[in-house]
C-alpha cells in the first residue's frame, strides 16, 4: 500500500512549528490538521483502543503548543518529534496492561460475514487479524502501523520507538512471524 501523502512537507511543518513557538494560533491549527490523522492511526493501532487513542492524540497535540519551545528543527522533523510524543504517551498508558484475549480466541472467532463468499472471507480474515493483533505488544503493533500504514523507513520507526533500525527489523520480523502463525489456518499461505 502506498503511504498517504503528507498534507505538508517537512519544511512547511517546521515553518508552522516556528510560528507556534511565537504563539501563532493559526499555525497551530494548521499543524493540528496535518498531524491529527497520522497521530490517531498510530495511537489507535498501537493501543488497539479507540477511546484511549483519542485521549493520547489530544494530549500529544496539546503538547505541540505547551512544549513548542522544546522543538529543535536541527534535531529532527516535526512529524518525528510528534510521533515520539504519541508513542511515549501510548507506552506509558499500556505499560501495566497486557493482552486480554487467549490464543484460542484467534482461531475460534465465529464469522459474521455476509453471504457473498469473497466478502465473507475478507471480513472473517479482518476479524481474525484484529484478534491476532491483540496478541502482539504495543511496540510491535506500532511498528507494523508505521511501516505498512505510514510507509516509514526502519530508521524513522526506530526514532519514534527510541531504538535502532536493526532492532526494528527484528521487531517487525518477529511480529510478522507471530501473525503468520496465528493466521496460517485461515490464510492460503503457500509453502
Amino acid at each position, binding site marked *: *500500500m502506498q503511504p498517504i501523502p503528507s498534507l505538508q512537507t517537512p519544511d512547511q511543518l517546521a515553518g508552522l512549528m516556528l510560528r507556534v513557538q511565537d504563539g501563532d494560533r493559526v499555525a497551530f491549527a494548521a499543524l493540528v490538521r496535518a498531524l491529527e490523522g497520522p497521530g490517531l492511526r498510530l495511537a489507535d*493501532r498501537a493501543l488497539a483502543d479507540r477511546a484511549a487513542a483519542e485521549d493520547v492524540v489530544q494530549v500529544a497535540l496539546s503538547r505541540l503548543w505547551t512544549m513548542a519551545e522544546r522543538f529543535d528543527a536541527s534535531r529532527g522533523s516535526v512529524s518525528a518529534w510528534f510521533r515520539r510524543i504519541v508513542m511515549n504517551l501510548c507506552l506509558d498508558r499500556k505499560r501495566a496492561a497486557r493482552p486480554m484475549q487467549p490464543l484460542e480466541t484467534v482461531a475460534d472467532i465465529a464469522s459474521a460475514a455476509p453471504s457473498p463468499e469473497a466478502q465473507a472471507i475478507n471480513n472473517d480474515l479482518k476479524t481474525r487479524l484484529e484478534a491476532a493483533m491483540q496478541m502482539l505488544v504495543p511496540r510491535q503493533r506500532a511498528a507494523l502501523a508505521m511501516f*505498512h500504514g505510514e510507509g516509514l523507513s526502519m530508521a524513522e520507526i526506530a526514532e519514534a520507538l527510541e531504538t535502532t533500525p536493526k532492532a526494528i527489523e527484528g521487531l517487525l520480523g518477529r511480529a*510478522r*512471524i507471530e501473525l503468520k502463525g496465528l493466521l496460517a489456518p485461515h490464510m492460503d499461505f503457500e*509453502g
Partner: protein
Amino acid sequence: MTIKVTQEQALALITAYGAEAARWPDEQRAALLALVAADPLVAAAHAEAAQLDRLLGGWAMDVPPRSFDAEALIPVPAKARAPFKVVRWLGAGAAAASVAVALLLGVPGAQTMVPAEGVQIAQNDISSQVLLGSASGQSEPLDGFSLVFTPTADEEDLI
C-alpha cells in the same frame, strides 16, 4: 553497491520488510530479487509476504478519522490566570490584616470579664495598666516595674 545475499538472509529480510522490493535495503535489493526468481523457497516466502502485506496495509489504514478542535487544545494562558492569583493573595492579605487588628484590639468580651468578688488577679496587660494604673486601684505614678508586673495584696506583703 550490491551485497551477496544467502537464502537464510533473504528469508529474514522478506520476513522483516515484506514483499515490496522498493522497501528493501538498497544494497541488497538486486541480490534479493535474483534469489526470489531463482530459489523456490525464497519465492514461496515472497508470495506469503505479499499476502500479509496486503492484510497489514488495510489494517494500518482502517482507522476512522477525527478532527480535533485546535483552540480547545490550547490551555488557558498564564497571563489570564494572573488576576486570579492577585485576588487570591489580596484575599489572604485581608484575612491576615483582620486577624492582626483583632489581636491588637483584644479578644471581644475580654474587657468585660469580671473576677469573682474578693479575688485579686495579677495582670500583665500593659494596655489596661496604662489606662487603669494598677490592679490595686491606687493612683500611683506608673513606673517600669508596675507596667511589667502588678503584685496582688499578698505579693505586696512579700515585697
